[in-house]
């Protein structure tokens, strides 16, 4: 198959952007409405594609992908006028008389490279931000979720303004070709390895990037809590999110030795309630995306250091790419499973002597995208918020913070840079232009040479905001 002419697409989009079309409020609204229509009119097609790519349960497809995307779209439609409005800011004596404002303006032509685990949401959520901010967009969905990629390409082609919004399908060669172009922003969701490649490519053109990566997101479980509720929330965040294939899914649990029996009992009990006696048969669990990832996860489980650590689950069905919810206890720190992001249905439990030690354990590793804590101890909660650096923190629940548009979503350190969601999406794709209006009045001679001691006194008073000093300098006192 001949590769699409990426250069021609970018050129066309640049032309559209230069015409000023995408900058208009009406255009942005029309495109956001079109996106909303895609979600509303083609729900079944999207759900089917997600089923084909990941066996994603309909409920999950609806809640985590379609609804989230619709909510983001509706919020942008509702708030767009307010977001676009220049922000007036105070000016000081130094520039008197003047007025100042910060005007958000689009960056230009942007590239969105999406991931396979939430292939619909993670493609369109950034596109919503890019459109809201008035940019032209090229979206590259992940080839690892081919059915969804195809549906997105087809529907965006049908509904969106093709002179400004395009989908380029493909794998590594297409991505490489795209990264050779000059963009005004690159928004990438995926892993740190590719993140580095994206940023290095962006550096050539000084293109700003948002990198939404992942990491090993820990869950700390204290003793004085409602174990049933905690466990249900952990399960919902781990296996209820694409069977662990989510960037903010709990990666491992840290708890004290004495908590383990209670925690394990509750886990086993609730897992059975949710997914039945034979979870490989459950329709409520996604499968592993492809054979590659199935083997990667199998390798983590077959590692000599952990084979005897499995305390629950462990069943695999290679033909159907299914792995049951699996819990491992006390895996060594140097095992494979503790060295890389798991991104699948395996959940190791690490035990520590006292719960406070968990923080040290987490801080000895790279900064994760999310960190979770279940406790009723306010002091511990406070320390956790203070001492744990992660993209986001959630106390007494998992993954829900993702759904809150009033909170920025994004990583720090190895888990990424930049953030989005709600207004933050708009800002991720905007440049904040500083605008200062001056009149021809208010001339201050001290600005200009020839320089004299009097001018020096005046400037010192001016920059220090010392009004009395100013008057004295003016009158030569």
């Amino acid at each position, binding site marked *: 198959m001949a590769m699409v002419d990426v250069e021609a697409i970018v050129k066309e989009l640049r032309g559209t952007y230069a015409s000023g079309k995408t900058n208009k409020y009406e255009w942005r609204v029309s495109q956001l409405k079109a996106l909303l229509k895609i979600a509303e009119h083609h729900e079944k097609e999207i759900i089917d594609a997600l089923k084909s790519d990941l066996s994603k349960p309909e409920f999950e497809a609806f809640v985590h992908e379609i609804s989230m995307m619709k909510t983001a779209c509706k919020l942008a439609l509702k708030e767009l006028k307010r977001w676009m409005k220049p922000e007036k800011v105070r000016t000081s004596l130094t520039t008197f008389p003047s007025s100042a404002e910060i005007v958000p303006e689009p960056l230009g032509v942007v590239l969105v490279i999406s991931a396979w685990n939430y292939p619909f949401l993670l493609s369109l959520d950034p596109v919503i931000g890019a459109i809201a901010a008035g940019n032209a967009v090229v979206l590259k969905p992940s080839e690892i979720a081919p059915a969804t990629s195809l549906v997105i390409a087809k529907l965006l082609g049908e509904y969106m303004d093709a002179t400004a919004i395009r989908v380029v399908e493909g794998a590594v060669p297409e991505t490489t070709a795209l990264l050779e172009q000059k963009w005004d922003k690159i928004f990438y969701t995926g892993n740190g390895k590719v993140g580095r490649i994206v940023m290095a490519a962006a*550096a050539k053109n000084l293109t700003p990037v948002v990198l939404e990566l992942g990491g090993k997101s820990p869950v700390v479980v204290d003793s004085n809590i409602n174990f049933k509720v905690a466990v249900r929330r952990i399960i919902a965040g781990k296996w209820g999110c694409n069977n662990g294939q989510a960037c903010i899914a709990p990666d491992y649990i840290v708890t004290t030795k004495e908590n383990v029996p209670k925690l394990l009992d509750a886990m086993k009990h609730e897992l059975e309630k949710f997914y039945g006696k034979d979870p490989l048969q459950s329709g409520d669990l996604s499968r592993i995306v492809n054979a590659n990832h199935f083997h990667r996860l199998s390798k983590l489980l077959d590692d000599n250091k952990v084979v005897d650590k499995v305390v629950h689950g462990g069943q695999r069905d290679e033909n159907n790419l299914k792995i049951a919810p699996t819990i491992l206890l006390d895996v060594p720190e140097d095992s494979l499973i503790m060295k890389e992001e798991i991104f699948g249905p395996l959940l190791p439990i690490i035990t520590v002597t006292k719960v406070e030690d968990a923080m040290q354990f987490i801080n000895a590793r790279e900064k994760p995208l999310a960190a979770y804590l279940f406790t009723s101890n306010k002091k511990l909660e406070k320390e956790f918020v203070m001492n744990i650096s992660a*993209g986001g923190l959630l106390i007494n*629940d998992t993954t829900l913070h993702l759904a809150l548009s009033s909170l*920025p979503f994004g990583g720090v*350190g190895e888990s990424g840079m930049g953030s989005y969601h709600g207004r933050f999406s708009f800002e991720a794709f905007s440049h904040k232009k*500083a605008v200062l209006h*001056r009149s021809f009045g208010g001339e201050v001679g001290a600005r200009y040479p*020839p320089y004299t001691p009097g001018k020096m006194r005046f400037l010192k008073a001016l*920059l220090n905001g010392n009004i009395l000093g100013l008057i004295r300098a003016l009158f030569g006192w």
Partner: protein
Amino acid sequence: MNGVEEEVRNTFRSGRTRGVAWRKAQLQGILNLLAEKEDEIFEALKQDLGKHPVESYRDEVGVAKKSAANALRCVEKWMAPQKGRIPLVFFPARGAVVSEPLGVALIFASWNFPISLALDPVIGAISAGNAVVLKPSDLAPKCSSFLANTIPLYLDPEAIKVVEGGKDVAEELLQLKWDKIFFTGSPQVGRVIMSAAAKHLTPVTLELGGKCPAIFDNLSNSSDLQVAAKRIVGAKWGPCNGQACIGIDYVLVETQLASVLIELLQKFIKRFYGENLKTLENLSRIVNKHHFDRVYNLLKDPKVAASVIYGGSVDEENMLIEPTILLNPPLDADIMTEEIFGPLLPIITMNNIEESIQFINSREKPLAIYAFTKNDSLKEKILQETSSGSLTFNDAIVQFICDTLPFGGVGQSGLGRYHGKFSFDTFSHEKAVLHRSFLIELEPRYPPWNNFKMEFVRLAYNYDYVGLVLLLLGLRGLFRTNRSQ
């Protein structure tokens, strides 16, 4: 180098730099340094760049002082967590955005404002609670050694280090892993910095430059004309004799007004700086031989030389270049394709001032655009149709000291921003924090999935609370049937 990074990282890990008391003490330390060492700073700037003390105060000491004082006053407010709005389905919960330090920041300063462009980002990094390694520019050696010798006396030496050196030192520093790199300088080096940062996924702020245009509209009022010309002369040759990232690079004017403008510019140049190159004490010199040759070479191009209508003389020994005005140099000459960064000012004429928008848009996005005009529709057009780091009407350079405005470029003029609260944000991670309680469990969150749960989440996503209650009471189906009839 490794040792330096390790030491500041250990200090950061100890948690010392996070406390508000530490941050305030350091900011106060900077204020003390500026107050007590003012004369030494003036002397260093005189030696490195021939800056006059008034210029040094206006562009360096005063700017850094204002910035530190502002940070000292506001840091506690900036540190306070910001509450986020939470929809009812999450009840009970509370959300907040907590700003936390990124860790260890590496700051590269530039030579043209070697004190303020070093201290200003350091102020941001400290306010946000980071440990810092600062590398001043080796092209301003006196200022560099001043910073290296003085900073340890005023600031926590285990958390804030100055490393002196040139390119090889910079390269060594870039091998290490930092939590933030803040760079002020040229786009070429900016690319190198960002490529190096990519290896460690380190976020960068790049403060670059570009060719900043000034649009000079037909001002009918003669006093306005005078003020505008005066401001252009002050802004072009005042700050470091044109060696400023937001300095005016060229002026766009209508053909019929060009001679008036040129006359006025000459008048103010003479008044401010004098006529004799030997006595130009109010002008900075060119920083070094390399840059002197670079700027001089721009002038040597025969077609460019023919377009000089004022100035043009140089004093090679003292590295001085006279304020120089050129009229319509060829647009494909280096002087119009490269950032000038020196005391040359090309005037480009056009038939209609509105053409200036297209002229600007056909080039890379500059760090600043200046427009001298009283025409509101032209103002609006410039605002809407051009893109630049900042846009200032009827003045130049002063946007730099307005700390409520973000300072930073876009496109080739850089990425990221600082000044005031923006400096704090640049060196912070905005951590999303959501607190939930164990009360109230929504059953529909959990599998096995069924139609009731599906309907529930549909309503929840629409925030249809009435519908939710009806559904829970088992009345939803009934209600809907009634409505559809």
